[in-house]
């Protein structure tokens, strides 16, 4: 598909996982959307950063643990996961608390590269200004 027909899709995730279904159903859209070969970015703002927490263990709440799916996003060409630094800091979290999420760069002999991009609030605001379609969860 030519770049002219590609739109920039931004998925904004602002809710913690498990307490509500938005995180899971957002991920389902991202996976289906990958087949459409658009220019996809994900944003994790506010409690959305909890979706990326390492060591999620859901046996005790009896719910499906879907956190591993984030680590598979690279295989779906979803490789830009923007995480807001201020959101992490407010919650007492650092990058080390999150899952390592990488993709294989086919242009560089399949070297593993990080998918998580840590940005501050003003960079996140600027990112929004570059998008064609915004889906909010």
């Amino acid at each position, binding site marked *: 598909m030519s770049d002219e027909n590609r739109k920039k899709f931004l998925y904004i995730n602002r809710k913690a996982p*498990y*307490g*509500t*279904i938005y995180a899971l159903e957002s991920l389902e859209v991202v996976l289906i959307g990958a087949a459409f070969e658009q220019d996809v970015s994900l944003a994790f703002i506010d409690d959305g950063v909890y979706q990326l927490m390492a060591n999620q263990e859901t046996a005790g*709440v*009896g*719910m*499906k643990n879907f956190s591993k799916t984030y680590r598979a996003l690279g295989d779906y060409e979803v490789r830009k996961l923007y995480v807001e630094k201020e959101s992490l800091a407010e919650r007492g979290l650092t990058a080390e608390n999150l899952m390592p999420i990488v993709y294989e760069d086919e242009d560089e002999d399949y070297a593993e590269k990080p998918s998580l991009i840590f940005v501050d609030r003003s960079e996140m605001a600027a990112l929004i200004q570059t998008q064609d379609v915004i889906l909010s969860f």
Partner: protein
Amino acid sequence: MRFGIVVNEGPYTHQASDTAYRFAVAALEKGHEIFRVFFYHDGVNNGTRYTVPPQDDRNLQKLWSELAEKHGLDLVVCIAAAQRRGILDANEAKRQGKDGDNIAPGFRISGLGQLIEAGIQADRLVTFGD
């Protein structure tokens, strides 16, 4: 002790139904009595047998129905809330001229008075919602 449980949100969308279910199981395991589970607001959506959750996920309607059968629980869906949200039993379907119903086994549709009665009869009323 005798508990009343209120579930105010539908399955999956919020965790309320999950937490209420696990609370109910724990209370029963401790030998407590559950006078009634009352489903209000979107909570009525726990009571439709038309749900088909993904195979690798829990089926909350079935969990409630099975718990009710095992322990003789009274699962009451609020009629006013159910009408707004499209939950019907055979009687309601007939009364409203609808061509089918979707209430799940073990659930019954009744009035808000059942919630007040649960508050009066139970030692503790515990609410789960959004």
